[in-house]
């Protein structure tokens, strides 16, 4: 398999993130329990997804800025079959987009769960609401990759 493959999660067959060169630091920081986004080392503008060059000042110098891990739900969907088997096995799961408190234009796709290691369908879909405050939690997937997940600030 090439580096562009989405290898299955060995336990649950959930898809694992397959980092590209620009995205790799995000996942390395996540494995340490830190939510960081790429920012220009010259003009300080944060950017997501990560890329080689700052679209504002064209600098190739970047740093990884730590975020508080707080944000709000910007939107969400409740996917129903047909789905890949590992996702179909968690009916009622959600996918959400979170806008980060410090940088509202930086939005991360994730899942709202009741606890870092809880199933993807562990929150009642009726609890999902655009604007709801959430905080990050980190989940180590069985394949050895850590992903950010999201928990309601007021569960």
């Amino acid at each position, binding site marked *: 398999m090439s580096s*562009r493959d*989405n290898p299955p999660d060995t336990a649950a067959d959930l898809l694992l993130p397959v980092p590209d060169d620009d995205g790799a630091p995000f996942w390395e920081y996540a494995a340490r329990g830190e939510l960081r986004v790429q920012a220009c080392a010259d003009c300080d503008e944060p950017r997501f997804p990560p890329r080689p060059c700052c679209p504002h000042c064209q600098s190739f110098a970047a740093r990884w800025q730590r975020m508080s891990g707080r944000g709000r739900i910007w939107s969400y969907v409740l996917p*129903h079959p047909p789905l890949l088997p590992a*996702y179909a096995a968690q009916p009622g*799961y959600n996918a959400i987009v979170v806008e980060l408190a410090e940088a509202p234009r930086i939005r991360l*796709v994730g899942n709202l769960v009741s606890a870092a290691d809880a199933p993807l369908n562990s929150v009642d879909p009726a609890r999902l609401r*655009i604007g709801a405050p959430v905080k990050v939690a980190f989940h180590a997937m069985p394949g050895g990759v850590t992903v950010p997940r999201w928990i309601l600030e007021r569960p």
Partner: protein
Amino acid sequence: MGATLKDATAIAGIGQTPFARQLPESERTLACRAIVAALDDAGIAPSEVDAFASYTMEETDEVEIAKAIGAGDVTHFSKVGYGGGGSCATVAHLAAAIATGQAHVGVAWRSRKRGSGPRPWKNTRVQLPTSGQWTRPFGLLRPADEIGMLARRYMHEYGATRDHFFNVALACRNRANQNPAAIMYDRPLTREMYMTARWISDPLCLFDNCLETDGALACVVVSAERARDCRQRPVYVHSAAQGLPAQHHGMVNYWNDDPLTGPAWTAARHLWKGADLGPQDVDVAQIYDAFTPLIPLSLEGYGFCGRGEGAAFTEGGALEIGGRLPLNTGGGGLSEAYVHGFNLITEGVRQLRGTSTAQVPDAATCLVTAGEGVPTSALLLRS
């Protein structure tokens, strides 16, 4: 100001195969059938074809097609990316080539066994550039999920409801019910069917999603002068545009200032700049409808209404025959066939020839758009 595309070229022929959930023939055979039919419609010999254009997702290629149909020496060929966003650009690239003397007779085509073939998102070994790592692990797997996310936000910001999306689905279905070639020809849709349908990705239900179809279509583009000598009434390419907005991210356009201002806005600005006409002059529209929410977003982008007004625009039968803007008069991707939007081009041609199965009286101008939510393209056709 140098050469202009305005009315310099015309669509002289259209052709298609039957549409079905499954057709027995190969994509290559279907492509050849559609292309030969389009050339016959134009009255142009295959040996005169010297240009080809299609989608990067097209699995048949110029070499195989050219030698099968008996094309002559080919001097222009191009493929456009981003799935259904490339539909109108295939015609635009041929128009540009012909208007600048690179070629004389161009064929654009799309052949796809999407009904028989695998669903692209099921392939876990392929990722869209850069975005897959940020979305797919979280179960945001399919185009319906990606657009559903934007649709929910659109509903939240502007008060759009499922009834607005139903208006879109119903208009397309009603037109398909008039079109014997449409997959949904004999299957009417009711509000109750829509409201009780199963979810695909809440807020999108089954009827918010396009069909899965086998079929092929083609059209022939020549100079306006040549078109006037062809078999059919010419349909002129009045204006054409592609659109990739600044800081756009494709169908997962969550990462810029304003995710709800999509490629339609960019394409529209260029389209109208190159035209003698504006949105108020459009008699009938063929708007890319892989998902119903793309219609209100496109209505805003192409200037038929203001920002946030696209859902309300669909009210009161506006998209039906006799309404403000009759939509997708062959049934569209939602109810005729989903072949990456190429059937919207051929239906636009039929409207301007006066031969649609849901003819808008005296239609003289037609907007055709490609996929919104991905780098897109559009054509303004006139008779």
